[in-house]
């Protein structure tokens, strides 16, 4: 069964953009607390470009959509999150290449994305980065049947909340050491929006 169509993939990005833009200031404030205060600005700029780009083109496959997303994020976001999200979407696209996106393909795509991010960022689960949310998503997808994937946002939100009390050991927040505790990781927050958007898109059209 196809679980993500080209139209859904496009819609996924549009909803993500809306969520990111609506929460631009919040994401930036989180990054001001434990980083350099640009995460919302970076992703808002990036996802606006993503939407501008995919609105202009007709795509044949989900892989093509996500490849285009990856290239745009890579070229427009910058900072740490640009290459990381770029890598995530590129790995998904590569995994989906020439395939329709069913449950198995999607799981595999997310697995590859997590691998890719971890390799690029040299971060592991529990280091208070967006890896935490992505790896938790991969685990969840592995264990739950597709019918239950509606719970994805809650899972992400819980993981994102877990980052609050962690001490960061990667990324800019790691400079804070103990002082990084008490703040949610901005990258985990934006990753939560991405998966929340995915769940909404699948629900509304599924």
């Amino acid at each position, binding site marked *: 069964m196809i679980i993500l169509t080209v139209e859904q993939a496009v819609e996924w990005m549009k909803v993500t953009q809306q969520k990111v833009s609506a929460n631009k200031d919040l994401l*930036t404030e989180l990054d*001001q607390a434990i*980083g*350099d*205060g*640009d995460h*919302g*600005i*970076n992703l808002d*700029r990036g996802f606006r470009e993503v939407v501008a780009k995919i609105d202009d083109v007709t795509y044949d496959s989900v892989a093509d959509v996500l490849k285009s997303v990856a290239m745009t994020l*890579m*070229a*427009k*976001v*910058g*900072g*740490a*999150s*640009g*290459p*990381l999200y770029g890598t995530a979407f590129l790995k998904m696209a590569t995994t989906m290449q020439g395939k329709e996106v069913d449950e198995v393909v999607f799981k595999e795509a997310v697995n590859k994305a997590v691998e890719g991010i971890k390799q*690029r*960022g040299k971060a592991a689960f529990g280091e208070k980065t967006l890896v935490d949310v992505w790896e938790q998503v991969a685990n969840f997808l592995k264990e739950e049947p597709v019918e239950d994937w509606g719970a994805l946002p809650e899972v992400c939100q819980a993981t994102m909340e877990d980052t609050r009390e962690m001490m960061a*050991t*990667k*990324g*800019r927040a*790691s*400079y*804070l050491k103990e*002082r990084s505790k008490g703040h949610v990781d901005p990258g985990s927050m934006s990753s939560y929006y991405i998966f929340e958007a995915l769940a909404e898109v699948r629900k509304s059209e599924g």
Partner: protein
Amino acid sequence: MKKIINDVDAIVDEMIEGIVKSHPTILKRLPNTTVITRVDAPVQGKVGLVSGGGSGHEPAHAGYVGKGMLDAAVIGEVFTSPTPDQILEAIKAANGGAGVLLIIKNYTGDVLNFEMAKELAELEGIEVAEVIVNDDVAVEDSTFTTGRRGIAGTVFVHKIAGALAENGVSLTEIKETCDNVIANIRSMGVALSSCTVPAAKKPSFQLEESEIEIGIGIHGEPGIERVAIQQADDIVTTLISKIQEDLDFTNSEIAVMINGLGATPEMELYIVSKKVHEWAKSHNIHIIQSWVGEYMTSLEMAGFSITFFKLNNEWKDLLKQDVATLKFHV
């Protein structure tokens, strides 16, 4: 937040236009990029030098482009690493056939984007090497963490690499020397006030009327601790002691940089410099040359950083070698 800007989304673009319009005999912009190069880039047969990072640190990095220093500077959004496609353009524009060295400051974003660009350039058949500057002793250097940050000491790396490249030294040798140079540079900074990323509209952090942040990063990343404002001499002693703890400069000849972060009057930088010279003397450290001014800023942040660079005879000469950039002079 009062800023002298027009459109907040066009800041970087307008700044780049302003730079190249102001200095057309030294610098040019690669069309449709955020890359500034020497007017005569690429210089055939010379190793190309590319540096860069987020903007907001001016005069870094365009101020260091010119004969005897960088061939190209890649400019990102404010405090945000530039993207691989832009860095790739810089590499291509700097490549005179002898390969290109990337001088990267150790931030996750910079390292990721520059390394992706390196891979892309290698795919296009350009030989690329990289060095990663990590002079900030405010951050612990450990294999389990992201490691020390790169701050103002980077300017010395630009200078040494630039002089070597001008002298026709090979990419491999320049990289090797730079790695060695980096191992001999240590810096640390302090902030008296915060700064505001224009698009963020509010200050990156808050300091109370009598607080300072010891060990600040150049994007306003927090440092070691917040303490009450002290006498200049005491702040200086705190910073240099930490530098000296990390690398012993006793009995060495060194170059010093006292770098203003943006809003600190030069008057205060020289009060700092006085103490640095006295401290060095009493610790048997020989200051050969000093740079005092704004070299790697953090928008309108008040504060400064101190950099020590342990020299050998070769590096002493390279530091003094002629250079034709806007903001680094010997």
